[in-house]
């Protein structure tokens, strides 16, 4: 087909968490510009399976609609590749040129150990959420809608923070592998709403403590996380996390 491209891939291959990994060269021919980045990997894996010489490349993916946060490739030195505000599944091959060499690596962080090839274990995020990223409500009949007045600005900001899909691109982009943008989005979405208020102090204290325990780095405010975030979570959330944390430490009974 005309307009199709040949792509040179350098893909991180690693058998499991204990073995040493290395970059392996693959040539993928006849790539359509309309393919997504993951579909190109499907084509390559199809070939690897039919050739039977090499195991297919393990990579995470689920919805392929840019909303689940499962895909996690570090492409040419940037999480989710060169485009802004998209996940890897929404990155298309038209963003590259014929003959390009593309380096694909897994997220790199002590808190995100490699499971195999490009798949990493992001359970650290789940443990942070379990430590405080929730509200406790009684079950039973649903409350009347709009019974709690919420300022439109706050509702909008909470919604923007809640857009975080927990993919971990912030950690991957950060030179310190810091999880501040993720944690700040999760703290913010609840701190901005009345439903989150009763547990606000314990929430922020527990989530920060869990974040530190998991071995994420500290925040240098480089802004790389927000620049690479597929949901464009704002750095103002990190400032809010700092405020929430110091207010809880200095101004509440808890620590």
């Amino acid at each position: 087909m005309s307009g199709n491209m040949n792509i040179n891939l350098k893909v991180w291959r690693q058998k499991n968490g204990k073995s040493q990994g290395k970059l392996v060269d693959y040539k993928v021919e006849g790539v359509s510009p309309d393919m997504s980045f993951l579909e190109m990997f499907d084509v390559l894996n199809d070939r690897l399976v039919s050739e039977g010489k090499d195991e297919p490349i393990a990579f995470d993916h689920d919805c392929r609609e840019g909303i689940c946060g499962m895909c996690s490739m570090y492409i040419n030195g940037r999480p989710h590749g060169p485009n802004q505000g998209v996940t890897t599944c929404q990155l298309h091959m038209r963003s590259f040129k014929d003959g390009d060499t593309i380096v694909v690596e897994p997220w790199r962080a002590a808190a995100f150990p490699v499971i195999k090839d490009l798949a990493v274990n992001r359970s650290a995020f789940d443990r942070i959420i379990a430590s405080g990223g929730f509200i406790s409500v009684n079950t039973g009949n649903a409350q009347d809608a709009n019974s709690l007045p919420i300022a439109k600005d706050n509702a909008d900001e909470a919604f923007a923070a809640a857009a975080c899909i927990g993919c971990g691109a912030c950690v991957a982009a950060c030179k310190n592998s810091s999880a501040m943008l993720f944690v700040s989005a999760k703290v913010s979405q609840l701190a901005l709403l009345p439903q989150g208020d009763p547990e606000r102090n314990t929430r922020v204290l527990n989530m920060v403590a869990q974040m530190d325990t998991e071995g994420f780095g500290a925040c240098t405010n480089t802004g790389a996380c927000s620049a690479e975030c597929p949901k464009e979570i704002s750095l103002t959330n990190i400032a809010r996390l700092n405020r929430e944390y110091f207010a809880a430490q200095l101004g509440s009974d808890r620590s």
Partner: protein
Amino acid sequence: MNWITKMFSSSLGQKLIMALTGLFLCSFLIIHMVGNLQLFKHDAGLAFNKYAVFMTTNPLIKTTSYLLYAAILFHAFKGIALVFQNKKARPVKYQAFDGKANSHWSSRNMGVLGTIILVFVVVHMSNFWAEYKFGHVPYTRYTENIQTGEIQSDYMPADFTMNSKMEEQSEGLMKVTIVKDLFRSVELGFKELWLVALYIIAMAALSFHLYHGFKSAFQTMGLNHKKYNGAINFIGIGVFAILIPIGFAAMPLYFFIK
């Protein structure tokens, strides 16, 4: 663990220490700049030497200066510790890393820039501060005509000493001041090319360090607000990344060329 140690040992609390000490050091830079502008006065260094006496004898300033030394050490060593701690969070490095695509160079190199500044502070303090405090700085006698404002300066013999750093007395229209001549140490010191070069490199590092550091400190303290961000950016870039480093770099250059 008590809540204060818990707070300051968390990753957020450690950054708060960096922010608070950093901003304290920024406030010092302004005082240091304003005071040292007296180096440019055409009075053979009289005003600057008097200022040096005031800065080293006033009890309030002396107390603040010990706080300042503690802040420098705290900021430097906490910063170095954080760099290594943060490196541990990524044991396996990326083969391809495109930092410039998503962040400013200075924000990714605060540790390196800070180290250059620390080396500079050590050289700077051993040249002037330690020399003034522990070494032998010769005295100069200034004779000032109160009516005309004319100043005549005479170097005292190199082995001349007195009990105080400065003595003043009036003889009719003449005001005589004998004072430790730090100005002369500055004048002589900045004839050395390597020293001037070190100062200029260090001030470039300071510029990049504060370009990121000043606004970053406010973000760490939780202040990221559209009403104030404009002012923080303006002061951070205009004053701390441009005016202050240029002003400080001008001093050694002025004496080198003079």
